[in-house]
């Protein structure tokens, strides 16, 4: 019922906008995160754009900061064919969904220059060969490690396990390693890094489900062993999200932590953190048959397919994704720019709190999550099955076989099976 109500309101608002009195100014609506430092940066940059373009008024439409809630709101607006917002901040994992639904514009007609962008970020912006978004900032999974306990980052998964076991047994720390093991998207990003480390994946390039392949089973076996056999990961981590994981690491309870870049600044705060100045980051190391990996997250800017001013909207997107704005965003909100050339500059090195050489190494290992319109559902299936395996309700192999069966059924229902009729 709430959904229907919201839809009604949005439609009404849409009509009010369309039929209101006309004036000479063109109005653009931008919607995205507007909390804290992120909000400051956006407001500042939108104002600067408006200054450059007299006659254009840019409005910031604030959306909930929780990704799920923002997603739900966007889906309701776009389903109701609302013209506003013109520009949407989309999470990388929503791109294919919005593109396949026809809710956002392909941008190739505007001839965007994208050579400089990280390939993994661009891959997430493409659907069926067309480009639907411009990467705005990226988030990558980082392996934080303690420089006071170790001389260097582990070079392989075997080494990571040995280091964690040895230090935990020597009582240097309570736990060896902490990661986000609660049943939510964060668990899938941890799994994705283990998968890549063992050379596995969730979907292959043709869209076929491969999450029950031997490599994937080895990856989940490794995770389950870490919790239930080696006990390097505490069982409580299976209820933890980013913040609980950070607290444990910040209290000096772990040798390794898998988390996002946001934690860096907080860990360096000596009044709260016991590990300040004793932390470095690296990509998640490779296991047998795989490669170092860092799950890619972040946001992209896309244009509403029903926008009244798509060309102007693209102009704003280009402005916001220009190097100058990205460096400012890195400085004020500590968010990583997706432009590769910036990582060679002193400006970015000065703007970012994390040492640039460490970040660059991680970005090279970035792995995107599968680009499919049904990513959220695929992820939910995985979350439940992985969590069942880690809490000992199912063996890893059986859990992944069930997950794969459910995913294939979902793809078939959605008309997206690579084997079945094309959508």
């Amino acid at each position: 019922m709430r959904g229907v109500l919201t839809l009604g309101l949005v439609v009404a608002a849409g009509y009010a906008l369309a039929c209101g009195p006309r004036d000479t100014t063109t109005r653009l609506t931008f919607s995205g995160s507007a909390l804290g430092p992120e909000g400051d940066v956006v407001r500042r940059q939108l104002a600067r754009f408006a200054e450059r373009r007299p006659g254009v008024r840019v409005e910031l439409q604030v959306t909930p900061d929780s990704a799920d809630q923002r997603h739900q709101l966007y889906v309701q607006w776009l389903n109701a064919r609302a013209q506003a917002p013109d520009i949407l901040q989309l999470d990388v994992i929503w791109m294919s969904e919005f593109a396949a639904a026809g809710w956002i514009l392909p941008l190739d007609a505007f001839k965007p220059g994208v050579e400089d962008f990280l390939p993994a970020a661009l891959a997430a912006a493409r659907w069926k060969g067309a480009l639907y978004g411009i990467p705005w900032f990226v988030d990558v999974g980082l392996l934080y490690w303690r420089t006071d306990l170790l001389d260097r980052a582990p070079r392989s998964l075997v080494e990571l396990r040995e280091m964690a076991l040895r230090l935990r047994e020597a009582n240097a720390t309570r736990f060896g390693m902490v990661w986000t093991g609660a049943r939510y998207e964060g668990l899938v990003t941890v799994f994705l890094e283990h998968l890549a480390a063992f050379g596995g994946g969730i979907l292959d390039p043709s869209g076929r489900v491969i999450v029950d392949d031997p490599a994937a089973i080895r990856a989940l076996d490794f995770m389950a062993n870490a919790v239930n056999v080696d006990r390097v990961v505490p069982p409580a981590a299976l209820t933890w999200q980013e913040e609980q994981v950070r607290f444990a690491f910040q209290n000096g309870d772990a040798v390794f932590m898998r988390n996002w870049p946001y934690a860096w600044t907080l860990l360096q705060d000596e009044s709260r953190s016991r590990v300040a100045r004793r932390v470095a980051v690296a990509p998640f190391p490779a296991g047998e048959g795989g490669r170092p990996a860092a799950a890619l997250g972040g946001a992209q800017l896309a244009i509403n397919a029903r926008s009244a001013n798509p060309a102007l909207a693209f102009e704003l997107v280009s402005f916001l994704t220009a190097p100058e704005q990205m460096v400012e965003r890195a400085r004020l909100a500590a968010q990583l720019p997706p432009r590769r050339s910036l990582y060679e500059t002193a400006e970015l090195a000065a703007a970012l709190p994390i040492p640039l050489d460490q970040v660059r190494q991680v970005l090279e290992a970035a792995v995107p999550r599968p680009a499919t319109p049904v990513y959220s559902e695929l992820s939910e299936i995985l979350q439940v099955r992985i969590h069942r395996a880690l809490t000992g309700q199912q063996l890893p192999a059986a859990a992944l076989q069930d997950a794969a069966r459910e995913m294939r059924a979902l793809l078939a229902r959605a008309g997206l099976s690579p084997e079945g009729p094309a959508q």
Partner: protein
Amino acid sequence: MNRGPAPIERDETRLAWLLVAPALGIILLVALAPIAVTGWESLHVHDLRLPWLGTPFIGAGNFVEAAGDPRFGAALLHTVAFALISVPLELVLGLALAVMMHSVVRGRAFIRVSALLPWAIPTVVAALLWRFMFEARTGILAGWFQALGLVGPAFDWFVHPLAAWVPIIAADVWKTTPFVAILLLAGLETIDPALGEAAQVDGAKPARAFLTITLPLLTPALVVAAAFRMLDALRLFDLAYVITGGGPGTATEPLSLYAFIALMQRLRFGYGSALSVTVFLLTFVFALVWVRALGRSLTGDRS
């Protein structure tokens, strides 16, 4: 013409319908229309994330899918098991509490009000309290269980598929026992004290008097309390949502929570509506059977 009621009577009937019509209209609009809309929705494919599928009518397709969905089967089992475990606990404890409150002579009002406190606390707040008490390392109760040696040092209540039910059931029992107690207390007050005195004069021990006099006379109140509690328990949502989120895996996921996930997270309005309809049918069928089987026999006994 002649067989119908007299004209005046007919006019009165018409007037009665006219007077009742606004109320009936509101009931239709508020109570029946949403159920009807949900029922209609449940017969369609309606997936906000897959707009290219359209919204075709598929009859019982969603219900067939639910029947073959192991997560649905598990959720149904969880819901029924939760109701069958927590409601009897609440009835027994509620009865004990009611008898105690009934026998208290001094400070009655104070004791009754304070006994009702848990019932007055919002469910979400109560759920959070119980969640915190069972949290590993920081929870009071989790600490006690550990100190007593009942669980190991690394034990986490929310990671074990059966142990995760303990905080949910404890919270439900804690919160709703006072409600049951008040209902039963009202029942106790209607029992003629002369009956108890007569039993005492005849030399019956208190236990005997309770079992043969109080309990049978209290049955109507017990039946009503059980009906209220079962209907509530079969719709379990908030406690599971706040305390465990349905986890670990989906080990504590009740039907209402699964329906919520299908509707609000997956945005599958058709399938989610079908799940909601099954929750509605489950409680409706229970209410029907319960009222027919017990309600009728009780009124029959009395007359």
